[in-house]
């Protein structure tokens, strides 16, 4: 790219950034004149950058992120992650008790290994690898599962337990950030604690950890023996590092991937079951924003505690990829893999900006809704997933974009501004350039029925309240901080609980994730989600927005052990906004643990 155009691109980038930050900082013309941002004639003073935090009485400039070098958009195809293949055997063979002598880092025996012996075995290695985010950036070292970012996709089936032997093949030399000590969480799995990736179940370089995934619906050992409640079926899960205090660094460095779970209805074959688009028409999309330094190396702000925003928008590890599609229906499994940004994704036709391009949401947090919901856009907090169906038939021969139109200028949370079409972040481009092909998938407009929502009228055994707050710059839940060694409360196995999450601030938002069991939202600010809305669903992350109170319904089943609840803005999570809770035979009645 010629130098002049590079400079010009940067100027454009900065001008847009300045404009947004001025809007965000809510500055009056008078303020701007005083700050020297506006000339007497009312023109913006040209600047190389401007932070909303700029009004500093001491005159010491706060540290901003670097501005990433320019990269050309839409010049590389969307990467599709390979399907992880099983191995015939593992040596030494997996054992119920941790095989410490052989180098296993697990500390507790498998709970369900004997009852549900693994029928497939996998072996994965977390290793450094050379990686390209864009041809305009240098090859650089990331950490990935099997050296890939995103890692390989697991295809799992209900009724088919698996075991993954997970090796830590990382190195002490981290290139500036990252902790080569890992704990892999299967996000939303109904997984026994010792295989769940609890933040303090980390294991070190050269160690391994056997993770047993029973792939059983909730209730299999309690309310719905022997197979569990089909209405608790999960479909789009993801795995990521969860090492306490270092999750943000390690996931930002690449330790994450998808895990898809099928059953007799969501079959992975569009000619059977629910007839959802399948095979090459069923595509996981991992959304990230990242920032690069002046030499093009991935940059992580080590001492940021608010949340980290990137200025490069990527899908499946590539900055602004394109994806060639056929004019037919596709299922996209969209995940916000962080670290901190909230997204509102629209379909934008740059040649027809006023069009409302509608599509269908079929799953919230990877859980199929009772029926499809027609939408023009969807919101994602970190770790949230939305499965959508887009029919490209009307766009044959054209290009259309996934555009993030939610304005966010601080890691603490988004603004309430939805940018005009074309003014947001064009994140990926669909080129409807391939020939027509058969489509055996269901038309969501016919309102097919998926899973019914499990009943949530049972009386809770206990109602617990959690305030997500900030005290002296420290992120806290009910005024307390993470401590892996001390459970805050104990849930009684096979009981129903109501949890009330509170955010008394208008300053930040928290995507709150609770491990092990899904929840249903009973009320958001006193109002129950409308039937037929996307929040009338099963979820595992709930966006706790400005000044909100959210009531959640839980039914904790089948397994015992320790689990966390935490903010999934991973920067908040790593700064103590997490607690440990346990499931045991007998629970306690702590109401504000």
């Amino acid at each position, binding site marked *: 790219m010629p130098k002049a155009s590079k400079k010009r691109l940067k100027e454009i980038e900065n001008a847009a950034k300045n404009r947004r930050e001025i809007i965000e900082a809510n500055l009056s013309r008078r303020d701007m004149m005083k700050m020297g941002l506006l000339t007497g004639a009312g023109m913006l003073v040209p600047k*190389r950058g401007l932070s909303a935090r700029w009004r500093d009485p001491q*005159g010491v*400039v706060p540290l901003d992120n670097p501005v990433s070098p320019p990269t050309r958009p839409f010049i590389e195809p969307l990467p599709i992650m390979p399907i992880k293949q099983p191995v015939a055997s593992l040596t030494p063979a997996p054992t119920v008790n941790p095989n410490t002598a052989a180098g296993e880092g697990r500390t507790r025996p498998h709970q369900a290994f004997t009852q549900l012996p693994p029928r497939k075995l996998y072996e994965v290695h977390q290793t450094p690898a050379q990686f390209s985010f864009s041809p305009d950036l240098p090859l650089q070292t990331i950490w990935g599962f099997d050296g890939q970012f995103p890692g390989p996709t697991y295809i799992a089936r209900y009724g088919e337990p698996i075991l993954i032997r997970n090796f830590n093949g990382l190195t002490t030399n981290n290139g500036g950030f990252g902790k080569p000590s890992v704990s892999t969480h299967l996000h939303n799995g109904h997984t026994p604690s010792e295989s769940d990736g609890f933040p303090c179940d980390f294991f070190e370089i050269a160690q391994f950890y056997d993770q047993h995934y029973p792939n059983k619906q909730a209730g299999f050992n309690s309310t719905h023996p022997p197979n569990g409640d089909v209405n608790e079926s999960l479909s789009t899960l993801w795995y990521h590092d969860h090492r*306490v*205090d270092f999750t943000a660094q390690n996931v930002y460095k690449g330790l994450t991937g998808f895990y898809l779970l099928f059953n007799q209805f969501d079959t992975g074959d569009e000619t059977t079951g629910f007839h959802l688009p399948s095979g090459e028409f069923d595509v996981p999309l991992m959304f990230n924003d990242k920032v690069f*330094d002046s030499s093009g*190396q991935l940059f992580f702000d080590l001492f940021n505690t608010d949340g980290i925003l990137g200025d490069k928008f990527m899908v499946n590890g590539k900055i602004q990829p394109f994806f060639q599609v056929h004019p037919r229906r596709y299922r996209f499994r969209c995940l916000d893999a962080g670290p901190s940004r909230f997204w509102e994704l629209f379909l934008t036709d740059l040649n027809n900006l006023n069009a409302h391009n509608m599509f269908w949401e079929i799953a919230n947090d990877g859980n199929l809704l009772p029926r499809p919901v027609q939408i023009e856009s969807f919101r994602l907090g970190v770790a949230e997933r939305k499965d959508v169906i887009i029919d490209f038939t009307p766009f044959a021969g054209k290009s259309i974009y996934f555009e993030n139109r939610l304005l966010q200028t601080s890691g603490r949370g988004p603004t309430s501004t939805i940018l005009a079409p074309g003014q947001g972040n064009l994140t990926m481009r669909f080129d409807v350039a391939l020939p027509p092909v058969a489509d055996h998938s269901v038309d969501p407009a016919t309102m097919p029925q998926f899973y019914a929502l499990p009943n949530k009228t049972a009386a809770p055994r206990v109602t617990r309240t959690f305030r997500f707050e900030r005290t002296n710059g*420290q992120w806290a839940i009910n005024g307390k*901080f993470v401590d892996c*060694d001390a459970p805050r409360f104990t849930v009684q196995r096979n009981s129903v609980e109501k949890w009330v999450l509170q955010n008394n601030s208008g300053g930040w938002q928290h995507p709150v994730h609770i491990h092990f069991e899904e929840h249903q939202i009973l009320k958001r600010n006193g109002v129950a989600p409308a039937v037929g809305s996307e929040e009338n669903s099963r979820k595992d992350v709930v966006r706790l927005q400005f000044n909100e109170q959210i009531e959640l319904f839980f039914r904790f089943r089948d397994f015992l052990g320790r689990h966390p609840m935490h903010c999934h803005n991973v920067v908040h999570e790593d700064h103590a906004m997490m607690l440990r809770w346990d499931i045991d035979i007998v629970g306690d009645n702590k109401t504000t643990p």
Partner: protein
Amino acid sequence: MPRITRRESIAMVGLSSLAGDLAHGEDRPAKGKTSRELIRDRYFPNVSLLTHEGKEVRFYDDLIKDKIVVINFMYAECEGICPGITANLVKVQKALGDRIGRDIFMYSITLKPDRDSPGALKEYAEMHGAKPGWTFLTGKPGDIELLRRRLGFVDSDPEVDKDKSQHIGNVRYGNEALQQWGACPGQANPTWIVKLISGVDWPKGMRS
């Protein structure tokens, strides 16, 4: 000695002008530096500080380089969160025993360098029972402010940031040579803080 950036030099002489490039707020080090040097340049200005023993030290060269460190901010007259955090850190120091002062070092930097002379900090250290290996630091106000901002002890809400009673209560811990940096609340359980610090200890076979 590392090159002093333009921004640092301006902060050091206490200028409050924010003209042109300075508003960019960005350190853009020359290419070809190691990640460790980039971290040093961005986060660890090598300013001169005074210890509670009256000794002059350079922040990066003498206090950070090659060490496992534990850093917080406080001031002697703070009656809010400081006494609790200091009491916690006394327990942390006790638990880490003779590692403190050998290869793990604790630093408490005053937020009120105007008021907290080395003598005042020495008195504070003795009153709380801080032992050798835990150094209380003061310096020129401009340098302290630079450190506070570089080390991320800043609230992004300027109104909150101005209020010293709401100062950031985090404890930053890290291993400089390994480039492993974390942070936790100073009000957390001291046993837990010790575990986190131990998490950035040298791997087996590496020096300590």
